[in-house]
């Protein structure tokens, strides 16, 4: 029986924000949930993140921001993915993101936003249920 392909996820920190506790924690939790994880490290531009997604043939891009730049960076990543023909890559985000920004981000193509206090199991489940086949 052919082995099921692992979900491949890029965990990325866009911009200059250095708060990486959540990103690193989730990288570990995704790996334990059976995903293949690439953590980009800090100071990523949208171009760098999309390049990583392309190189790695990623199924999912997880973006983390706690510095208030999500409205600029998250939609930009979605836009660049589309330009590269990676429309079916699932993009999710988390961090300190005011509720009033969530609808805008979702309509820009970010499929889910996970705020502080989210149960990590819920994030794993969401990814498993929404990733491309």
């Amino acid at each position: 029986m052919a082995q099921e392909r692992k979900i491949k996820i890029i965990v990325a920190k866009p911009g200059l924000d250095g708060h990486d506790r959540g990103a690193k924690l989730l990288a570990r939790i995704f790996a334990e949930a059976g995903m293949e994880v690439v953590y980009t490290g800090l100071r990523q531009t949208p171009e760098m993140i999309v390049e990583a997604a392309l190189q790695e043939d990623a199924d999912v891009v997880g973006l983390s921001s706690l510095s208030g730049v999500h409205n600029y960076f998250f939609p930009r990543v979605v836009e660049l993915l589309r330009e590269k023909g990676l429309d079916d890559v699932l993009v999710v985000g988390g961090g300190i993101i005011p509720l009033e920004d969530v609808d805008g981000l979702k309509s820009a193509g970010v499929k889910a936003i996970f705020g502080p206090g989210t149960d990590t199991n819920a994030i794993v489940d969401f990814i498993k249920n929404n990733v491309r086949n």
Partner: protein
Amino acid sequence: MSEDKSLEKLKAAKEKWEQGSVQKTLSKAPERRKVFTSISDIPVERLYTPLDVADLDYERDLGFPGEYPFTRGVQPTMYRGRFWTMRQYAGFGSARESNARYRYLLEQGQTGLSVAFDLPTQAGYDSDHPLSMGEVGKVGVAIDSIEDMRVLFDSIPLDKVTTSMTINAPATVLLAMYLAIAEEQGVPFGKVGGTVQNDILKEITVRGQYIYPPKPSMRLTVDLIDYCFKEVPKWNSISISGYHIREAGSTAGQEMAFTLADGIAYVQACVDRGMAVDSFAPRLSFFFNSFTNVLEEVAKFRAGRRYWAKVMKERFGAKDPRSMMMRYHVQTGGVTLTAQQPINNVVRVALQAYAAALGGCQSLHTNSYDEALCLPTQEAVTVALRTQQIVAEESGAADTIDPLAGCYFVEAMTDRIEAEIDDYIKKIDAMGGTLAAIEQGFVQKEIQNSAYRFQREIESGERVYVGINKYTMEEPPPANLLKVDMSVGEVEAAKLKKLRAERDAGKWKAALDHLREVSQSEENVMPAVIEAVKARATVGEICDVWRGIYGEYRPKEFV
């Protein structure tokens, strides 16, 4: 009766109590859990008695406030003389907006300033740099040149107010601007007081605002310390920070251990430069977190003070008692705040501030209850400031020194945390020092493991977090959040364009050329940096000079 005999008697009595009264109660009603642990995973016993502090020698281990080993505090009268400095970290948008917030806070009884810079400033980029996109004025104030600094401190007398600046990789540049503004106000350097964070090691391990590789970064750090010791004697030239280590997930003991390990590295670097330990050590300061578990926090602060005093005396041979004092700022735990039922955070902050006061801090920032949602609104900042004013004026914590000394539990916990610190320092020494330990990822992995353990405890329900995994409720979306004007970036970029067009290009170029020359020699860079900021060179331009010489740091990631 001898002390040994009395302890034996007590031991027998305690056993009797355990087998009698305790067993009787347990047989009817078991305790809430099998093992109790602090938030840092330290086991907590049912009861502490003199048996747990049998080895405590009062004069050796505790002593008196203002005297070695400083367990009870660094000043002889502590808050009976004056309260800790109430210092709220603030800054957002433009220099003009932040100046207004500072003046408001000073009017409300705040006694010192604490400047938050935006990320481009912290990373040494001008507001119009491509990497600054979306970040200008977001998490702090945007400062590009001396012009912005002048506006930031408009109508604030720099001989009367002390200022703490959270700036690390470009610390020399922002300090140079501050000194230049003081000079414009007619305030001599000798009267200027404040702190720059200037702690690059914790940027590399946990905070992420580094620019250059560790070695040249350390050179800039030591240049600043050396310059302040000679020219700005009231300035705290470094704030060795555990705050961010804790925020990244460490335990209380790890926070103290890794911070003091960084402290040892800085002292060693200064000594290696040829500085006498008692010349610079009195101006070293520290910065810690405070979580909600009050007694553990108090023990952490006391253990840290005692351990640092021993390090300075025994390891570095300091003679001046001031060199042995761990003086520190505290900020309440940002990561402990919840986005759920945010008003509950007022209570968390109050307990954390109470712990900081009982622990003997020198200055304190209390977080605002809305910080898990956004940058704090003026209303939330006011409640935060009032919280520490209530702790100071109403709780009684400030009226007697180190009131928890002699508490069996707190003394036992103090010893336990001190032993944990010692353990880590020995391990790190064996690895070749903190820089080597960081390069191997040891420090990062220890912190990440603690963060992971905590997360799992919350998700399994093993540890309760109110509003997160217990006592949750449906609530309306939060209202009245602070919004930072998105146009700050454009305004700052326009200002930069004007500055570059109007400044004396010859003077500007000469100053940067001179800085480049000095930076390649062994001469202290500070005078050349001051000259450059006066010639209206920007933060980005000065940092670029060093990028050209030292290169940029890209850390290995340990996940």
